């Protein structure tokens, strides 16, 4: 039986605001998994804290709702325990680029085969509208009534500079493109970052759908754009102030787990972990 969209649907009533960008991301994720013909039991979502962290509740597959900022270490552990799972870490810009930044940096260079889907709305929505790490300078919120005096984190530049092998950006107002980006990210062997611009319709009235529709450009429309050229990708991202969508950079190569000596392909639960008594004694003798 082919996998259908209904297989990934739940009856959970949505908690997101009407028009929230996260609906677009959820829809794209479900459709991408159907296109890839992944069975729900083959997929695990590891979600962080924030509005976006609810995504795991709205999709029928394995779901771990982790603590704030800890999506990537949990997703890493899950993938290493069961390499057959399609592991998708999901969260927001606060979860990933503030409290989770330490994990983010190392996940980029470690290259475990997981897809990291960041719903970036430039604001803390769940806590009713404070400045986030990706908020623009000057952005007025409850926590920055005179305007944000900090400059934003630039996740695409960070990812490119840190050697991430798959860097993409989508927009929840352009679901068909986002579907293709998620499919490419899941199929990529290694860590895949997909920064999904996902407007908050309640607490960010600056970075709206119209704001992005007027400014975003698709990399395939840039003359001669080559997504395998990291230096040019970085240059394009800087020149366009991060307002690009598409696969910005991809590099093929082995993932972290491909390179671990003695690391087995089968999940831990299927491995014979029993030691024969003579092997146990031999091991014990080494510590006597």
């Amino acid at each position, binding site marked *: 039986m082919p996998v259908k969209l209904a297989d990934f*649907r*739940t009856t*959970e009533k949505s908690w997101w605001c*009407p028009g929230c*960008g996260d*609906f*677009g991301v959820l829809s794209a994720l479900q459709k991408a998994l159907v296109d890839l013909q992944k069975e729900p039991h083959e997929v695990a979502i590891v979600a962080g804290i924030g509005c976006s962290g609810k995504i795991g509740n*709205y999709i029928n597959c394995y779901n771990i709702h982790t603590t704030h900022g800890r999506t990537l270490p949990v997703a890493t552990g899950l993938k290493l325990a069961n390499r057959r799972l399609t592991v998708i870490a999901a969260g927001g810009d606060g979860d990933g680029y503030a409290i989770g930044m330490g994990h983010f940096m190392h996940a980029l260079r470690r290259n475990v085969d997981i897809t990291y889907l960041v719903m970036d709305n430039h604001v803390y929505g769940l806590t009713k509208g404070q400045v986030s790490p990706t908020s623009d300078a000057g952005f007025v919120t409850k926590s920055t009534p005179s305007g944000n005096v900090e400059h934003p984190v630039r996740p695409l530049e960070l990812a490119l500079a840190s050697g991430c092998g798959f860097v993409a950006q989508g927009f929840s107002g352009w679901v068909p493109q986002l579907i293709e980006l998620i499919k490419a990210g899941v199929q990529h062997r290694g860590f895949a970052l997909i920064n999904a611009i996902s407007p908050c319709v309640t*607490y960010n009235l600056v970075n709206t*759908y119209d704001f992005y529709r007027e400014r975003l450009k698709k990399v395939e429309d840039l003359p001669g754009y080559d997504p395998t050229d990291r230096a040019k990708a970085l240059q394009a991202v800087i020149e366009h102030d991060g307002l690009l969508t598409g696969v910005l950079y991809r590099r093929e190569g082995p993932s972290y787990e491909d390179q671990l000596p003695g690391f087995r392909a089968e999940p831990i639960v299927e491995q014979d972990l029993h030691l024969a008594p003579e092997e146990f004694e031999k091991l014990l003798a080494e510590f006597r």
Partner: protein
Amino acid sequence: MTPGDGEALCHPEVLARLASLLPLPEPRAPGAKREPLPEGRPVQAAAEALAIVEALLAQREYPRIVERHGLRFVCYLADEWEWGSPPLVHVQAWDGEMWRDLAEVAGRLAP
């Protein structure tokens, strides 16, 4: 979008419910001073509700949002996000801080 979405949202009861939420002038009370469009309100509101639904359904990209008369209308089609759900229009009002739901108006699916 399916033809069923349009039929469900253009159902007379759905349009009447939407029309009742529009902040158009109320019908004139007996003896009251004549205001603009007094007797025309039901017709005007019904026409405006239909125009709003048509504007929502005409949008091809997510999200389907229309702002009219100081209200925001956000539309989800049948089964778009919640399995087994009819098409839905959230009617929201600005409370000075954020858009809050005044009402959720569900489309009428054919039996």
